[in-house]
Protein backbone atom coordinates (compact mmCIF):
# COMPACT_ATOMS: atom_id res chain seq x y z
CA UNK A 1 0.00 0.00 0.00
CA UNK A 2 1.40 3.34 -1.01
CA UNK A 3 0.93 6.59 0.77
CA UNK A 4 -2.51 7.88 0.09
CA UNK A 5 -3.17 11.31 -1.14
CA UNK A 6 -2.26 14.02 1.29
CA UNK A 7 -4.73 16.67 0.41
CA UNK A 8 -8.34 16.78 1.38
CA UNK A 9 -10.95 15.49 0.91
CA UNK A 10 -11.64 12.54 -1.39
CA UNK A 11 -9.25 9.67 -1.40
CA UNK A 12 -8.73 7.30 -4.30
CA UNK A 13 -10.13 3.86 -3.52
CA UNK A 14 -7.68 1.16 -2.57
CA UNK A 15 -8.99 -0.92 -5.42
CA UNK A 16 -10.41 1.21 -8.20
CA UNK A 17 -12.74 -1.57 -9.29
CA UNK A 18 -14.59 -1.62 -6.01
CA UNK A 19 -17.36 0.83 -5.42
CA UNK A 20 -17.81 2.32 -1.99
CA UNK A 21 -20.80 1.19 0.07
CA UNK A 22 -21.11 4.47 1.88
CA UNK A 23 -20.01 7.83 0.57
CA UNK A 24 -20.22 11.29 2.06
CA UNK A 25 -19.71 14.33 -0.13
CA UNK A 26 -18.80 17.74 1.30
CA UNK A 27 -20.88 17.49 4.44
CA UNK A 28 -21.41 20.75 6.29
CA UNK A 29 -23.02 21.00 9.70
CA UNK A 30 -23.14 24.08 11.87
CA UNK A 31 -24.52 24.53 15.36
CA UNK A 32 -25.32 28.22 15.59
CA UNK A 33 -21.93 29.87 15.13
CA UNK A 34 -20.00 26.70 15.75
CA UNK A 35 -18.94 24.86 12.64
CA UNK A 36 -19.10 21.13 13.36
CA UNK A 37 -18.31 19.89 9.85
CA UNK A 38 -16.72 22.05 7.19
CA UNK A 39 -17.05 20.12 3.94
CA UNK A 40 -16.09 16.58 4.86
CA UNK A 41 -16.03 13.70 2.40
CA UNK A 42 -15.54 10.05 3.16
CA UNK A 43 -15.64 6.71 1.37
CA UNK A 44 -16.26 3.34 2.95
CA UNK A 45 -15.49 0.21 0.97
CA UNK A 46 -16.88 -3.29 1.49
CA UNK A 47 -14.96 -5.36 3.98
CA UNK A 48 -12.81 -2.63 5.46
CA UNK A 49 -12.42 -1.06 8.85
CA UNK A 50 -12.24 2.70 8.50
CA UNK A 51 -11.11 4.45 11.64
CA UNK A 52 -11.97 8.08 12.27
CA UNK A 53 -9.62 9.85 14.64
CA UNK A 54 -9.26 13.44 15.69
CA UNK A 55 -8.88 15.67 18.68
CA UNK A 56 -11.86 16.63 20.82
CA UNK A 57 -14.16 18.90 18.86
CA UNK A 58 -12.63 17.94 15.52
CA UNK A 59 -16.03 16.79 14.31
CA UNK A 60 -15.75 13.02 14.66
CA UNK A 61 -19.05 12.57 16.45
CA UNK A 62 -20.86 15.09 14.26
CA UNK A 63 -19.62 13.26 11.18
CA UNK A 64 -20.93 9.89 12.26
CA UNK A 65 -24.15 11.43 13.57
CA UNK A 66 -24.77 12.79 10.07
CA UNK A 67 -23.96 9.40 8.56
CA UNK A 68 -26.35 7.61 10.91
CA UNK A 69 -29.30 9.99 10.88
CA UNK A 70 -28.86 11.39 14.39
CA UNK A 71 -28.10 14.79 12.88
CA UNK A 72 -29.15 16.18 9.51
CA UNK A 73 -26.27 17.82 7.60
CA UNK A 74 -26.86 21.39 6.41
CA UNK A 75 -25.15 20.70 3.10
CA UNK A 76 -23.63 17.81 1.23
CA UNK A 77 -24.73 14.40 0.11
CA UNK A 78 -24.71 10.92 1.55
CA UNK A 79 -24.73 8.02 -0.88
CA UNK A 80 -25.41 4.45 0.05
CA UNK A 81 -24.42 1.90 -2.60
CA UNK A 82 -24.25 4.79 -5.04
CA UNK A 83 -27.73 6.11 -4.35
CA UNK A 84 -28.36 9.31 -2.50
CA UNK A 85 -30.12 8.93 0.83
CA UNK A 86 -31.66 11.46 3.21
CA UNK A 87 -31.69 10.31 6.80
CA UNK A 88 -34.04 12.32 8.99
CA UNK A 89 -33.82 10.13 12.08
CA UNK A 90 -31.71 7.21 13.31
CA UNK A 91 -34.46 4.82 12.27
CA UNK A 92 -34.01 5.83 8.62
CA UNK A 93 -30.36 4.84 8.69
CA UNK A 94 -31.18 1.59 10.42
CA UNK A 95 -33.77 0.61 7.84
CA UNK A 96 -31.03 1.17 5.25
CA UNK A 97 -28.80 -1.28 7.11
CA UNK A 98 -26.54 1.15 8.99
CA UNK A 99 -26.23 0.22 12.65
CA UNK A 100 -24.59 2.46 15.20
CA UNK A 101 -23.20 2.04 18.68
CA UNK A 102 -23.22 5.51 20.19
CA UNK A 103 -20.73 6.66 22.75
CA UNK A 104 -23.45 6.91 25.38
CA UNK A 105 -24.46 3.37 24.41
CA UNK A 106 -28.18 3.99 23.91
CA UNK A 107 -29.19 1.04 26.02
CA UNK A 108 -32.16 1.11 28.33
CA UNK A 109 -30.84 0.25 31.80
CA UNK A 110 -34.05 -1.12 33.29
CA UNK A 111 -34.73 -3.51 30.40
CA UNK A 112 -33.03 -6.88 30.13
CA UNK A 113 -30.34 -7.88 27.65
CA UNK A 114 -32.70 -9.53 25.16
CA UNK A 115 -35.15 -6.60 25.27
CA UNK A 116 -32.29 -4.22 24.58
CA UNK A 117 -31.02 -6.26 21.65
CA UNK A 118 -34.46 -6.09 20.10
CA UNK A 119 -35.36 -2.57 21.30
CA UNK A 120 -37.23 -0.72 18.57
CA UNK A 121 -37.68 -3.84 16.41
CA UNK A 122 -39.44 -6.25 18.67
CA UNK A 123 -40.77 -9.45 17.16
CA UNK A 124 -44.30 -10.66 17.68
CA UNK A 125 -45.62 -14.16 18.01
CA UNK A 126 -46.52 -15.62 14.65
CA UNK A 127 -49.73 -17.14 16.00
CA UNK A 128 -53.12 -15.53 16.56
CA UNK A 129 -52.02 -13.83 19.79
CA UNK A 130 -49.23 -12.08 17.95
CA UNK A 131 -51.40 -11.01 15.05
CA UNK A 132 -54.54 -10.05 16.94
CA UNK A 133 -53.19 -8.88 20.30
CA UNK A 134 -49.68 -7.98 19.13
CA UNK A 135 -48.13 -10.20 21.78
CA UNK A 136 -44.33 -10.17 21.77
CA UNK A 137 -42.39 -13.36 21.17
CA UNK A 138 -40.41 -12.90 24.39
CA UNK A 139 -39.04 -16.43 24.58
CA UNK A 140 -38.16 -16.49 20.90
CA UNK A 141 -36.32 -13.18 21.14
CA UNK A 142 -34.43 -14.43 24.21
CA UNK A 143 -33.45 -17.60 22.41
CA UNK A 144 -32.28 -15.77 19.31
CA UNK A 145 -30.48 -13.14 21.41
CA UNK A 146 -28.56 -15.93 23.10
CA UNK A 147 -27.71 -17.54 19.76
CA UNK A 148 -26.56 -14.22 18.36
CA UNK A 149 -24.30 -13.58 21.37
CA UNK A 150 -22.81 -17.03 21.02
CA UNK A 151 -22.28 -16.54 17.31
CA UNK A 152 -20.49 -13.27 17.95
CA UNK A 153 -18.36 -14.99 20.56
CA UNK A 154 -19.52 -12.77 23.39
CA UNK A 155 -19.08 -15.05 26.35
CA UNK A 156 -19.50 -12.46 29.11
CA UNK A 157 -23.26 -12.37 28.68
CA UNK A 158 -24.67 -15.71 29.68
CA UNK A 159 -28.03 -14.63 31.04
CA UNK A 160 -30.06 -12.56 28.57
CA UNK A 161 -32.82 -11.96 31.13
CA UNK A 162 -30.66 -9.86 33.46
CA UNK A 163 -31.32 -6.11 33.47
CA UNK A 164 -28.64 -4.09 31.73
CA UNK A 165 -28.22 -1.84 34.79
CA UNK A 166 -26.80 -4.84 36.63
CA UNK A 167 -24.05 -5.34 34.05
CA UNK A 168 -20.50 -4.01 34.05
CA UNK A 169 -19.43 -1.33 31.59
CA UNK A 170 -17.81 -3.90 29.34
CA UNK A 171 -20.87 -6.09 29.32
CA UNK A 172 -23.09 -3.12 28.46
CA UNK A 173 -20.73 -2.32 25.61
CA UNK A 174 -21.02 -5.90 24.45
CA UNK A 175 -24.81 -5.59 24.41
CA UNK A 176 -24.65 -2.45 22.30
CA UNK A 177 -22.06 -3.87 19.90
CA UNK A 178 -23.96 -7.13 19.60
CA UNK A 179 -27.11 -5.23 18.73
CA UNK A 180 -25.37 -3.36 15.94
CA UNK A 181 -23.59 -6.46 14.67
CA UNK A 182 -26.73 -8.56 14.73
CA UNK A 183 -28.82 -6.12 12.71
CA UNK A 184 -26.35 -4.15 10.63
CA UNK A 185 -26.63 -5.44 7.10
CA UNK A 186 -24.50 -2.84 5.32
CA UNK A 187 -22.44 -0.76 7.74
CA UNK A 188 -21.64 -0.91 11.45
CA UNK A 189 -20.55 2.31 13.14
CA UNK A 190 -18.83 2.13 16.52
CA UNK A 191 -18.25 5.34 18.47
CA UNK A 192 -15.47 4.85 21.05
CA UNK A 193 -16.30 1.19 21.63
CA UNK A 194 -13.31 0.53 23.87
CA UNK A 195 -13.26 3.77 25.87
CA UNK A 196 -14.67 2.33 29.06
CA UNK A 197 -13.26 -1.16 28.80
CA UNK A 198 -10.50 -3.14 30.42
CA UNK A 199 -7.78 -4.89 28.46
CA UNK A 200 -9.50 -8.20 27.98
CA UNK A 201 -12.83 -6.66 27.08
CA UNK A 202 -11.19 -4.23 24.67
CA UNK A 203 -9.54 -7.14 22.89
CA UNK A 204 -12.88 -8.90 22.65
CA UNK A 205 -14.46 -5.86 21.05
CA UNK A 206 -11.54 -5.48 18.62
CA UNK A 207 -11.84 -9.14 17.72
CA UNK A 208 -15.53 -8.56 17.14
CA UNK A 209 -14.64 -5.72 14.76
CA UNK A 210 -12.30 -8.02 12.82
CA UNK A 211 -14.96 -10.73 12.70
CA UNK A 212 -17.48 -8.28 11.28
CA UNK A 213 -15.00 -7.20 8.61
CA UNK A 214 -14.21 -10.81 7.74
CA UNK A 215 -17.90 -11.37 7.22
CA UNK A 216 -17.74 -8.61 4.63
CA UNK A 217 -19.39 -5.96 6.76
CA UNK A 218 -17.58 -2.63 6.66
CA UNK A 219 -17.00 -0.97 10.02
CA UNK A 220 -16.49 2.69 10.89
CA UNK A 221 -14.59 2.97 14.14
CA UNK A 222 -14.26 6.22 16.05
CA UNK A 223 -11.59 6.03 18.71
CA UNK A 224 -9.09 7.98 20.74
CA UNK A 225 -7.02 4.92 21.37
CA UNK A 226 -4.20 4.87 18.79
CA UNK A 227 -2.99 1.32 19.48
CA UNK A 228 -6.54 0.06 18.99
CA UNK A 229 -6.94 2.08 15.80
CA UNK A 230 -3.64 0.92 14.33
CA UNK A 231 -4.45 -2.62 15.41
CA UNK A 232 -7.69 -3.05 13.47
CA UNK A 233 -8.07 -0.25 10.93
CA UNK A 234 -7.43 -0.68 7.22
CA UNK A 235 -7.57 3.05 6.62
CA UNK A 236 -7.60 5.99 8.99
CA UNK A 237 -9.54 9.18 8.37
CA UNK A 238 -8.08 12.05 10.39
CA UNK A 239 -10.45 14.88 11.33
CA UNK A 240 -9.03 18.25 12.26
CA UNK A 241 -11.03 21.43 12.91
CA UNK A 242 -14.12 20.17 11.15
CA UNK A 243 -12.25 18.99 8.07
CA UNK A 244 -10.60 15.83 6.91
CA UNK A 245 -6.88 16.51 7.40
CA UNK A 246 -5.78 13.29 5.70
CA UNK A 247 -6.63 9.68 5.12
CA UNK A 248 -3.75 7.35 5.90
CA UNK A 249 -3.16 3.66 6.39
CA UNK A 250 -1.37 1.90 9.26
CA UNK A 251 1.24 0.83 6.69
CA UNK A 252 1.93 4.30 5.36
CA UNK A 253 2.16 6.15 8.64
CA UNK A 254 2.88 5.37 12.25
CA UNK A 255 1.12 6.54 15.39
CA UNK A 256 3.40 9.52 15.87
CA UNK A 257 2.62 10.71 12.33
CA UNK A 258 -1.07 10.30 12.97
CA UNK A 259 -0.96 12.32 16.16
CA UNK A 260 1.08 14.99 14.40
CA UNK A 261 -1.51 15.30 11.64
CA UNK A 262 -4.31 15.26 14.18
CA UNK A 263 -2.82 18.15 16.12
CA UNK A 264 -1.77 20.09 13.06
CA UNK A 265 1.95 19.66 13.71
CA UNK A 266 2.36 18.00 10.34
CA UNK A 267 0.52 17.30 7.17
CA UNK A 268 0.38 13.91 5.58
Amino acid at each position, binding site marked *: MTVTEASVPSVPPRDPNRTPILQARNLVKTFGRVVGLDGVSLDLYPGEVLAIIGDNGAGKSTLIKCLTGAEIPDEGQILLSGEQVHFKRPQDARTHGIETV*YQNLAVSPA*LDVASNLYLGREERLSNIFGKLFRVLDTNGMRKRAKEELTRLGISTLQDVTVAVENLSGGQRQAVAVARAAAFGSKVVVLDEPTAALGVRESNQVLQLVRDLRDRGLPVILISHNMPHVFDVADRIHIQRLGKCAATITPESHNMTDAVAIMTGAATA
Partner: protein
Amino acid sequence: MTQQQTAGPPPAHADLAEEFLDRSTPLTRIRNILHRYPALSPAIVLLLAVIVFGILNDRFLRPENLSLITQQVAVIGTLAIAQTLIILTAGIDLSVGAVMVLASMVVAQTAVNNGFPAILALLAGLATSLVAGALNGLLVTRLKLPPFIVTLGTLNIFIALTLLYSNGATVRGSKMPELLTWTGSTFPIGGVRISIGVVLMLLLYGIVAFILGKTAWGRHVYAVGDDKEAARLAGIPVSRVLMSVYLAAGAVLAVGAWIQIGRTNAASPNAGVDLNLDSITAVVIGGTSLFGGRGSIWGSLLGALIVGVFRNGLSLAGLDVLYQTLAVGILVIVAVSVDQWIRKVKS
Protein backbone atom coordinates in the same frame (compact mmCIF):
# COMPACT_ATOMS: atom_id res chain seq x y z
CA MET B 1 -3.45 10.21 23.67
CA THR B 2 -1.45 7.16 22.92
CA GLN B 3 -1.56 5.57 26.32
CA GLN B 4 -1.36 1.84 26.14
CA GLN B 5 -4.54 -0.05 27.13
CA THR B 6 -6.61 2.20 29.33
CA ALA B 7 -6.72 1.39 32.99
CA GLY B 8 -9.86 -0.55 33.66
CA PRO B 9 -11.20 -3.20 35.95
CA PRO B 10 -8.99 -6.29 36.16
CA PRO B 11 -9.95 -9.03 33.71
CA ALA B 12 -11.54 -11.20 36.36
CA HIS B 13 -13.88 -8.47 37.54
CA ALA B 14 -16.96 -10.63 36.98
CA ASP B 15 -15.65 -12.97 39.61
CA LEU B 16 -14.93 -10.01 41.87
CA ALA B 17 -18.54 -8.94 41.56
CA GLU B 18 -19.69 -12.36 42.64
CA GLU B 19 -17.29 -12.33 45.52
CA PHE B 20 -18.68 -8.97 46.53
CA LEU B 21 -22.21 -10.33 46.45
CA ASP B 22 -21.15 -13.24 48.59
CA ARG B 23 -20.00 -10.84 51.26
CA SER B 24 -23.47 -9.26 51.33
CA THR B 25 -25.32 -9.05 54.61
CA PRO B 26 -28.84 -10.43 55.06
CA LEU B 27 -30.08 -6.85 54.74
CA THR B 28 -28.60 -6.36 51.28
CA ARG B 29 -29.93 -9.73 50.26
CA ILE B 30 -33.43 -8.60 51.24
CA ARG B 31 -32.78 -5.44 49.27
CA ASN B 32 -31.81 -7.45 46.21
CA ILE B 33 -35.02 -9.44 46.39
CA LEU B 34 -37.13 -6.28 46.79
CA HIS B 35 -35.30 -4.75 43.84
CA ARG B 36 -36.08 -7.74 41.69
CA TYR B 37 -39.77 -7.78 42.57
CA PRO B 38 -40.95 -4.15 42.86
CA ALA B 39 -44.52 -5.13 43.81
CA LEU B 40 -43.29 -7.16 46.78
CA SER B 41 -42.80 -4.32 49.27
CA PRO B 42 -46.28 -2.79 48.79
CA ALA B 43 -47.74 -6.31 49.05
CA ILE B 44 -46.01 -6.81 52.40
CA VAL B 45 -47.18 -3.39 53.65
CA LEU B 46 -50.76 -4.16 52.60
CA LEU B 47 -50.69 -7.54 54.34
CA LEU B 48 -49.28 -6.03 57.55
CA ALA B 49 -51.81 -3.18 57.46
CA VAL B 50 -54.72 -5.60 57.05
CA ILE B 51 -53.45 -7.76 59.93
CA VAL B 52 -52.87 -4.80 62.27
CA PHE B 53 -56.20 -3.11 61.53
CA GLY B 54 -57.92 -6.49 61.79
CA ILE B 55 -56.49 -6.94 65.29
CA LEU B 56 -57.25 -3.36 66.33
CA ASN B 57 -60.90 -3.54 65.33
CA ASP B 58 -62.85 -6.73 64.69
CA ARG B 59 -65.25 -4.86 62.43
CA PHE B 60 -62.42 -4.24 59.94
CA LEU B 61 -62.40 -7.71 58.41
CA ARG B 62 -66.20 -8.02 58.21
CA PRO B 63 -67.56 -8.49 54.67
CA GLU B 64 -69.52 -5.17 54.76
CA ASN B 65 -66.37 -3.27 55.58
CA LEU B 66 -64.28 -5.06 52.96
CA SER B 67 -67.02 -4.26 50.40
CA LEU B 68 -66.77 -0.62 51.39
CA ILE B 69 -63.00 -0.57 51.02
CA THR B 70 -63.06 -2.09 47.54
CA GLN B 71 -65.69 0.40 46.40
CA GLN B 72 -63.75 3.31 47.84
CA VAL B 73 -60.65 2.09 46.05
CA ALA B 74 -62.33 1.69 42.63
CA VAL B 75 -62.03 5.35 41.57
CA ILE B 76 -58.55 5.97 42.99
CA GLY B 77 -57.39 2.65 41.61
CA THR B 78 -58.57 3.61 38.12
CA LEU B 79 -56.96 7.06 38.26
CA ALA B 80 -53.77 5.34 39.44
CA ILE B 81 -53.68 3.34 36.18
CA ALA B 82 -53.59 6.53 34.13
CA GLN B 83 -51.10 8.05 36.54
CA THR B 84 -48.82 4.98 36.36
CA LEU B 85 -48.66 5.12 32.57
CA ILE B 86 -47.59 8.75 32.69
CA ILE B 87 -45.15 8.37 35.59
CA LEU B 88 -43.52 5.42 33.78
CA THR B 89 -42.56 7.88 31.03
CA ALA B 90 -40.91 10.09 33.70
CA GLY B 91 -43.89 12.45 33.62
CA ILE B 92 -46.56 13.32 36.14
CA ASP B 93 -50.22 14.19 35.62
CA LEU B 94 -51.75 16.64 38.05
CA SER B 95 -54.91 16.87 35.96
CA VAL B 96 -56.20 13.28 36.25
CA GLY B 97 -58.85 14.15 38.84
CA ALA B 98 -59.98 17.26 36.98
CA VAL B 99 -60.22 15.40 33.66
CA MET B 100 -62.24 12.65 35.28
CA VAL B 101 -64.66 15.14 36.86
CA LEU B 102 -65.00 17.05 33.58
CA ALA B 103 -65.76 13.80 31.73
CA SER B 104 -68.29 12.74 34.36
CA MET B 105 -70.07 16.11 34.06
CA VAL B 106 -70.18 15.77 30.27
CA VAL B 107 -71.63 12.26 30.59
CA ALA B 108 -74.27 13.36 33.10
CA GLN B 109 -75.23 16.64 31.42
CA THR B 110 -75.48 15.24 27.89
CA ALA B 111 -77.66 12.41 29.18
CA VAL B 112 -79.90 14.48 31.46
CA ASN B 113 -80.02 17.93 29.84
CA ASN B 114 -79.43 17.12 26.16
CA GLY B 115 -81.28 13.81 26.17
CA PHE B 116 -78.40 11.76 24.76
CA PRO B 117 -78.90 7.99 24.99
CA ALA B 118 -76.70 6.55 27.76
CA ILE B 119 -74.18 4.99 25.36
CA LEU B 120 -73.79 8.23 23.45
CA ALA B 121 -73.37 10.17 26.69
CA LEU B 122 -70.58 7.80 27.74
CA LEU B 123 -68.92 8.20 24.35
CA ALA B 124 -69.16 11.99 24.75
CA GLY B 125 -67.36 11.59 28.07
CA LEU B 126 -64.71 9.41 26.42
CA ALA B 127 -64.24 11.99 23.66
CA THR B 128 -63.86 14.73 26.28
CA SER B 129 -61.15 12.95 28.23
CA LEU B 130 -59.37 11.93 25.02
CA VAL B 131 -59.27 15.58 23.95
CA ALA B 132 -57.99 16.50 27.40
CA GLY B 133 -55.30 13.81 27.14
CA ALA B 134 -54.40 14.97 23.64
CA LEU B 135 -54.02 18.54 24.90
CA ASN B 136 -51.63 17.41 27.66
CA GLY B 137 -49.78 15.19 25.21
CA LEU B 138 -49.41 17.90 22.56
CA LEU B 139 -48.11 20.42 25.07
CA VAL B 140 -45.59 17.87 26.34
CA THR B 141 -44.41 16.58 22.96
CA ARG B 142 -44.71 19.67 20.72
CA LEU B 143 -43.91 22.55 23.05
CA LYS B 144 -41.56 20.30 25.05
CA LEU B 145 -42.88 21.67 28.33
CA PRO B 146 -42.32 19.66 31.50
CA PRO B 147 -45.39 17.49 32.24
CA PHE B 148 -45.61 18.93 35.76
CA ILE B 149 -46.12 22.46 34.42
CA VAL B 150 -48.40 21.37 31.57
CA THR B 151 -50.75 19.47 33.84
CA LEU B 152 -50.61 22.14 36.55
CA GLY B 153 -51.98 24.50 33.92
CA THR B 154 -54.51 22.12 32.44
CA LEU B 155 -55.62 21.13 35.97
CA ASN B 156 -56.86 24.68 36.48
CA ILE B 157 -58.23 24.93 32.95
CA PHE B 158 -60.26 21.75 33.36
CA ILE B 159 -61.56 22.77 36.80
CA ALA B 160 -62.73 26.07 35.38
CA LEU B 161 -64.26 24.44 32.30
CA THR B 162 -66.10 21.96 34.50
CA LEU B 163 -67.61 24.70 36.66
CA LEU B 164 -68.51 26.83 33.64
CA TYR B 165 -70.06 23.90 31.82
CA SER B 166 -72.05 22.61 34.78
CA ASN B 167 -72.89 25.99 36.36
CA GLY B 168 -71.57 24.40 39.53
CA ALA B 169 -74.61 22.17 39.81
CA THR B 170 -74.54 18.50 40.78
CA VAL B 171 -76.54 16.06 38.64
CA ARG B 172 -78.20 13.39 40.78
CA GLY B 173 -77.99 9.76 39.81
CA SER B 174 -81.74 9.23 40.08
CA LYS B 175 -82.22 11.46 37.02
CA MET B 176 -79.70 9.58 34.89
CA PRO B 177 -80.27 6.58 32.63
CA GLU B 178 -79.65 3.34 34.51
CA LEU B 179 -76.55 2.43 32.51
CA LEU B 180 -74.68 5.46 33.85
CA THR B 181 -75.08 4.40 37.48
CA TRP B 182 -74.71 0.70 36.66
CA THR B 183 -71.08 0.81 37.81
CA GLY B 184 -72.38 1.37 41.36
CA SER B 185 -74.52 -1.77 41.44
CA THR B 186 -73.10 -4.69 43.37
CA PHE B 187 -73.14 -8.47 43.45
CA PRO B 188 -72.00 -10.70 46.32
CA ILE B 189 -68.90 -12.88 46.30
CA GLY B 190 -68.69 -14.83 49.55
CA GLY B 191 -70.44 -12.13 51.54
CA VAL B 192 -68.33 -9.30 50.12
CA ARG B 193 -70.36 -7.08 47.82
CA ILE B 194 -68.36 -6.25 44.73
CA SER B 195 -69.48 -3.35 42.55
CA ILE B 196 -69.37 -3.33 38.77
CA GLY B 197 -66.98 -0.39 39.11
CA VAL B 198 -64.48 -2.60 40.95
CA VAL B 199 -64.78 -5.24 38.24
CA LEU B 200 -64.19 -2.60 35.56
CA MET B 201 -61.16 -1.33 37.45
CA LEU B 202 -59.69 -4.84 37.76
CA LEU B 203 -60.40 -5.44 34.08
CA LEU B 204 -58.49 -2.27 33.19
CA TYR B 205 -55.57 -3.37 35.37
CA GLY B 206 -55.52 -6.70 33.56
CA ILE B 207 -55.59 -5.05 30.13
CA VAL B 208 -52.92 -2.47 30.94
CA ALA B 209 -50.69 -5.06 32.64
CA PHE B 210 -50.98 -7.19 29.51
CA ILE B 211 -50.14 -4.32 27.19
CA LEU B 212 -47.22 -3.11 29.31
CA GLY B 213 -45.77 -6.57 29.75
CA LYS B 214 -46.44 -8.28 26.46
CA THR B 215 -46.36 -5.72 23.67
CA ALA B 216 -43.68 -3.64 22.01
CA TRP B 217 -45.59 -0.49 22.99
CA GLY B 218 -45.24 -1.47 26.65
CA ARG B 219 -41.51 -1.89 26.32
CA HIS B 220 -41.24 1.42 24.53
CA VAL B 221 -43.10 3.15 27.37
CA TYR B 222 -40.50 1.83 29.83
CA ALA B 223 -37.61 2.64 27.50
CA VAL B 224 -38.79 6.22 26.94
CA GLY B 225 -39.13 6.77 30.68
CA ASP B 226 -35.81 5.12 31.38
CA ASP B 227 -33.68 7.16 29.00
CA LYS B 228 -35.39 9.27 26.36
CA GLU B 229 -32.25 9.86 24.27
CA ALA B 230 -31.29 6.19 24.33
CA ALA B 231 -34.82 5.30 23.23
CA ARG B 232 -34.62 7.79 20.38
CA LEU B 233 -31.27 6.44 19.22
CA ALA B 234 -32.64 2.91 19.41
CA GLY B 235 -35.23 3.99 16.86
CA ILE B 236 -38.26 4.43 19.12
CA PRO B 237 -40.58 7.26 18.02
CA VAL B 238 -40.44 9.00 21.40
CA SER B 239 -43.02 11.72 20.73
CA ARG B 240 -45.49 9.24 19.32
CA VAL B 241 -45.09 6.96 22.33
CA LEU B 242 -45.58 9.90 24.73
CA MET B 243 -48.63 11.10 22.82
CA SER B 244 -50.16 7.62 22.88
CA VAL B 245 -49.54 7.40 26.63
CA TYR B 246 -51.46 10.62 27.27
CA LEU B 247 -54.29 9.42 25.03
CA ALA B 248 -54.39 6.04 26.78
CA ALA B 249 -54.50 7.83 30.12
CA GLY B 250 -57.42 9.89 28.81
CA ALA B 251 -59.30 6.74 27.83
CA VAL B 252 -58.71 5.22 31.27
CA LEU B 253 -59.97 8.42 32.93
CA ALA B 254 -63.24 8.19 30.96
CA VAL B 255 -63.84 4.79 32.54
CA GLY B 256 -62.90 6.38 35.87
CA ALA B 257 -65.60 9.01 35.31
CA TRP B 258 -68.20 6.28 34.76
CA ILE B 259 -67.07 4.45 37.90
CA GLN B 260 -67.20 7.72 39.89
CA ILE B 261 -70.80 8.39 38.78
CA GLY B 262 -71.85 4.91 39.91
CA ARG B 263 -69.91 5.09 43.16
CA THR B 264 -71.33 8.46 44.29
CA ASN B 265 -74.64 8.01 42.44
CA ALA B 266 -74.19 11.55 41.16
CA ALA B 267 -71.98 13.73 39.01
CA SER B 268 -70.62 16.61 41.01
CA PRO B 269 -68.26 19.31 39.69
CA ASN B 270 -66.61 19.57 43.09
CA ALA B 271 -65.98 15.90 43.80
CA GLY B 272 -62.65 14.28 43.16
CA VAL B 273 -60.60 17.17 41.80
CA ASP B 274 -58.08 16.52 44.58
CA LEU B 275 -57.84 12.86 43.62
CA ASN B 276 -54.76 13.69 41.54
CA LEU B 277 -52.61 13.66 44.68
CA ASP B 278 -54.17 10.42 45.94
CA SER B 279 -53.46 8.79 42.59
CA ILE B 280 -49.82 9.89 42.71
CA THR B 281 -49.66 8.59 46.28
CA ALA B 282 -50.99 5.20 45.19
CA VAL B 283 -48.48 4.96 42.34
CA VAL B 284 -45.54 5.97 44.53
CA ILE B 285 -46.50 3.64 47.36
CA GLY B 286 -46.87 0.95 44.69
CA GLY B 287 -43.15 1.21 43.98
CA THR B 288 -43.16 3.00 40.63
CA SER B 289 -40.23 5.39 40.33
CA LEU B 290 -41.06 9.06 39.82
CA PHE B 291 -37.97 9.21 37.60
CA GLY B 292 -39.64 6.91 35.10
CA GLY B 293 -38.85 3.59 33.52
CA ARG B 294 -39.34 1.44 36.59
CA GLY B 295 -42.40 0.08 38.27
CA SER B 296 -45.32 -2.26 37.84
CA ILE B 297 -48.96 -1.54 37.26
CA TRP B 298 -49.98 -4.11 39.90
CA GLY B 299 -47.94 -2.15 42.44
CA SER B 300 -50.27 0.79 41.83
CA LEU B 301 -53.30 -1.38 42.59
CA LEU B 302 -51.63 -2.43 45.83
CA GLY B 303 -50.80 1.23 46.51
CA ALA B 304 -54.41 2.26 45.99
CA LEU B 305 -55.52 -0.57 48.31
CA ILE B 306 -52.99 0.50 50.94
CA VAL B 307 -54.34 4.06 50.87
CA GLY B 308 -57.91 2.71 51.08
CA VAL B 309 -57.08 0.33 53.93
CA PHE B 310 -55.28 3.03 55.93
CA ARG B 311 -58.08 5.54 55.53
CA ASN B 312 -60.74 2.98 56.41
CA GLY B 313 -58.79 1.34 59.23
CA LEU B 314 -57.95 4.63 60.90
CA SER B 315 -61.53 5.86 60.69
CA LEU B 316 -62.75 2.57 62.19
CA ALA B 317 -60.23 3.14 64.97
CA GLY B 318 -62.17 6.33 65.62
CA LEU B 319 -59.50 8.75 64.46
CA ASP B 320 -60.35 12.04 62.81
CA VAL B 321 -60.03 12.41 59.01
CA LEU B 322 -57.05 14.65 59.67
CA TYR B 323 -55.11 11.71 61.04
CA GLN B 324 -55.89 9.69 57.91
CA THR B 325 -54.36 12.43 55.82
CA LEU B 326 -51.41 12.56 58.20
CA ALA B 327 -50.95 8.80 57.90
CA VAL B 328 -51.11 8.89 54.09
CA GLY B 329 -48.52 11.68 54.07
CA ILE B 330 -46.15 9.69 56.26
CA LEU B 331 -46.78 6.62 54.11
CA VAL B 332 -45.65 8.45 50.96
CA ILE B 333 -42.42 9.66 52.57
CA VAL B 334 -41.66 6.19 53.94
CA ALA B 335 -42.49 4.54 50.60
CA VAL B 336 -40.16 6.83 48.65
CA SER B 337 -37.38 6.42 51.23
CA VAL B 338 -37.66 2.65 51.07
CA ASP B 339 -37.68 2.90 47.28
CA GLN B 340 -34.48 4.97 47.30
CA TRP B 341 -32.84 2.45 49.60
CA ILE B 342 -33.87 -0.46 47.37
CA ARG B 343 -32.56 1.25 44.26
CA LYS B 344 -29.11 1.66 45.77
CA VAL B 345 -28.64 -1.97 44.83
CA LYS B 346 -27.50 -1.06 41.35
CA SER B 347 -24.66 1.29 42.23
